[in-house]
C-alpha cells in the first residue's frame, strides 16, 4: 500500500532533519554563524503596500516564519542593496542562505540575536550587561494540504521563562492548524502568539508589556481562529492558559482578539480586546482579572515614513481593592531614508491607574546590512513611576540579528 501523502512527506522531512549533513549545517549555523531566525514582525512593511501579514508570514497575524515570497521580499525591499537593482532577488534569500532547500511543504527558519546593554537606574552609574543568547531559535512548519503544524525551539537568555520546556530550553510556539475556505480561515490549537495590537519586536514597549502580548514569551495555549480576507484580517483566541507554567493558579484564562482593516494600501486601522483571569497573577501574586481594550493604526503617508500608534485602556481588578483603570500608549515613526537603513523615534506612556504617568522615548536605528542580517542600536530614556517614586531609567542597547 502506498504511504499516505502526509506520512510520506512527514518522513521525508524527518529524514532530512536527521541527515548528518543537515545537522552539521544547522550546528554550523547556530554556533558559527549563530545568525538564525525568521524575519520578525516588521509592521512598517506597510510602506510597501503590505497591510496584510500573510503575504510574507505563515502566521496570518504576522511574525515568525516567512513564506517564499516573504523571503524574496526581505531580499528585495528590506536589506540594503548597495546600488544593485531591487528587483533582483539573490539566491541567498532562502533558508540557510539558500544552501539548503526544504522539501515541499516544509518551511524552516531560525534566528540569533546577541545583545549588549548599558542600563542606568536613577542616580546609579551605568551597568553593563551582555546577553549572548538574547534570542536563539529554530522554527519549522509542515503544511500538507490544509493541515499545518508549527514548532519553535530555542534557548532563553534567562531562567524561569514562561516558554520553558526544561531549563533554558524554550518553545514559544507549537500548534497544529487547519485552513478552511481556501485558507482564508485558519483554526489553530496550541501555544500561539496572542492577537493584540501592533505586533512589534520591541517586547519591552509598555503597550506590549502592560498587555502581556509580546513576542518574547507571553504566548498562551488555546484555540484561535484567524480570518484573512481582502482588506480585513482578524483573529480571536480562547486562552486556556500557559501550560508551561505550574501550578494551575498562575494560568490566565480568557480571550484575546484583534482585527485590522486596510482603509487604503498604506493605511490600516485596528482594534484589540483582551480579558483574562488568574487565581494568582504572575506579577501581583494575588487573584487578578485584567482587561485591555485598544485601538492601533499604521500609516505610510510617504514611502520613507511610517507612523504607527497604539492606545490601550487597562483594567485591573483584584479582590479587596478598587478596580484600577489605566492606559498604555505608543506612537512610533519609522523613517527609511535609504533602503535598508531605518531610524525610529518612539514615544510611549504608561499609567497603571491611580498613579502618576510614566513616560518614555526611544531613539533607534536599524541597518539591514546584508542578506538575513541587521544591526540595531537603541537609546531609551524613561521616567517611571514606582509607588511614590519617579525614577529616570536610561538604556543603550546594541543588537545583532541574523536569520536563517
Amino acid at each position, binding site marked *: 500500500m502506498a504511504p499516505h501523502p502526509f506520512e510520506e512527506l512527514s518522513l521525508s522531512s524527518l529524514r532530512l532533519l536527521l541527515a548528518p549533513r543537515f545537522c552539521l549545517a544547522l550546528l554550523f549555523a*547556530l554556533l558559527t554563524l549563530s545568525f538564525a531566525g525568521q524575519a520578525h514582525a516588521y509592521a512598517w512593511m506597510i510602506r510597501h503596500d503590505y497591510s496584510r501579514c500573510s503575504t510574507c508570514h505563515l502566521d496570518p497575524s504576522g511574525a515568525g516564519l516567512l513564506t517564499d515570497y516573504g523571503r524574496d521580499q526581505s531580499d528585495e525591499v528590506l536589506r540594503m542593496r548597495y546600488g544593485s537593482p531591487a528587483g533582483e532577488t539573490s539566491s541567498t534569500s532562502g533558508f540557510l542562505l539558500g544552501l539548503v532547500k526544504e522539501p515541499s511543504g516544509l518551511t524552516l527558519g531560525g534566528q540569533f540575536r546577541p545583545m549588549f546593554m548599558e542600563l542606568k537606574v536613577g542616580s*546609579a552609574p551605568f551597568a553593563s550587561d551582555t546577553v549572548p543568547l538574547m534570542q536563539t531559535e529554530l522554527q519549522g512548519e509542515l503544511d500538507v494540504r490544509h493541515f499545518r503544524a508549527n514548532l519553535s525551539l530555542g534557548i532563553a537568555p*534567562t*531562567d524561569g521563562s514562561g516558554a520553558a520546556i526544561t531549563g533554558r530550553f524554550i518553545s514559544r510556539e507549537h500548534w497544529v492548524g487547519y485552513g478552511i475556505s481556501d485558507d482564508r480561515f485558519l483554526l489553530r490549537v496550541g501555544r500561539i502568539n496572542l492577537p493584540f495590537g501592533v505586533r512589534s519586536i520591541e517586547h519591552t514597549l509598555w503597550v506590549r508589556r502592560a498587555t502581556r502580548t509580546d513576542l518574547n514569551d507571553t504566548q498562551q495555549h488555546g484555540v484561535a481562529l484567524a480570518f484573512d480576507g481582502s482588506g480585513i484580517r482578524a483573529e480571536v483566541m480562547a486562552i486556556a492558559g500557559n501550560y508551561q507554567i505550574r501550578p494551575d493558579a498562575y494560568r490566565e484564562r480568557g480571550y484575546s482578539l484583534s482585527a485590522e482593516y486596510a482603509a487604503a494600501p498604506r493605511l490600516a486601522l485596528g482594534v484589540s480586546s483582551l480579558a483574562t483571569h488568574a487565581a494568582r497573577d504572575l506579577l*501581583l501574586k494575588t487573584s487578578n482579572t485584567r482587561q485591555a481594550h485598544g485601538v492601533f493604526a499604521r500609516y505610510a503617508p510617504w514611502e520613507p515614513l511610517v507612523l504607527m500608534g497604539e492606545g490601550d485602556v487597562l483594567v485591573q481588578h483584584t479582590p479587596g481593592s478598587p478596580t484600577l483603570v489605566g492606559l498604555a500608549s505608543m506612537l512610533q515613526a519609522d523613517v527609511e531614508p535609504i533602503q535598508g537603513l531605518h531610524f525610529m523615534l518612539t514615544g510611549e506612556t504608561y499609567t497603571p491607574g491611580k498613579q502618576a504617568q510614566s513616560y518614555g522615548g526611544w531613539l533607534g536605528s536599524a541597518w539591514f546590512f546584508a542578506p538575513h542580517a541587521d544591526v540595531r542600536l537603541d537609546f531609551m530614556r524613561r521616567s517611571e513611576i514606582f509607588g511614590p517614586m519617579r525614577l529616570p531609567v536610561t538604556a543603550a542597547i546594541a543588537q545583532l540579528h541574523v536569520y536563517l
Partner: protein
Amino acid sequence: MSLKSLSARLPLVLGVALLAAPARAVPEFPPVIADQLQLGYDPPCSVCHFENKTASVTVTTPFGYALRDRGLTGRESLPGALTRLADDHADSDGDGVADTVELKDHTDPNSRANASLVDVADPNVGCSTAWPSRGAATPLAQLLAVAGAALMLARRRRRTPG
C-alpha cells in the same frame, strides 16, 4: 525510517536533553537579603526579577529598580544597596509600608495587594523542577547535547542495513 523506529529513538534524544538540563541561576542573592534583614526565610527571586525570570537584565521589578537606584550592580553591592534602601524607608509599591518592613512581614514589596511571599511559591516552568547545583550544564551544552544525539542517531541509521 518508520514512525515506529523513530518513536523508539525519540526517548534517547529527549533523555540526553533532559540530562543536560536544567541550567538555572545559582540562588546567591536571596540568602544575602534574608541574612541582612533577618527575615527567617529566603525571599523568592520574583521580588527582584520580572516575572521570576532570573538574569541580571531582568532586575526590573519596582523593588529591583529601587535597589539598582541605590547602587546594586552585583552580589558585592547588595548589602550596601539594602542598607540605603532601609535608611530611605523606600516604598516601591506605594502602599505606605516600607519595603524592608514588608519583607519582614512576609509580604511582597512590589504588590499593593500585599501578597504573601511565603504562602504560595513562585511558579515552576517547564518540565523540570529541580534546583540545580553550581556548574550545571549551560544552555549551549544542552544544545550541543541534542545536536550530538541527533547526529549519533543519524549515523546509526546510515550504518543499519536496509
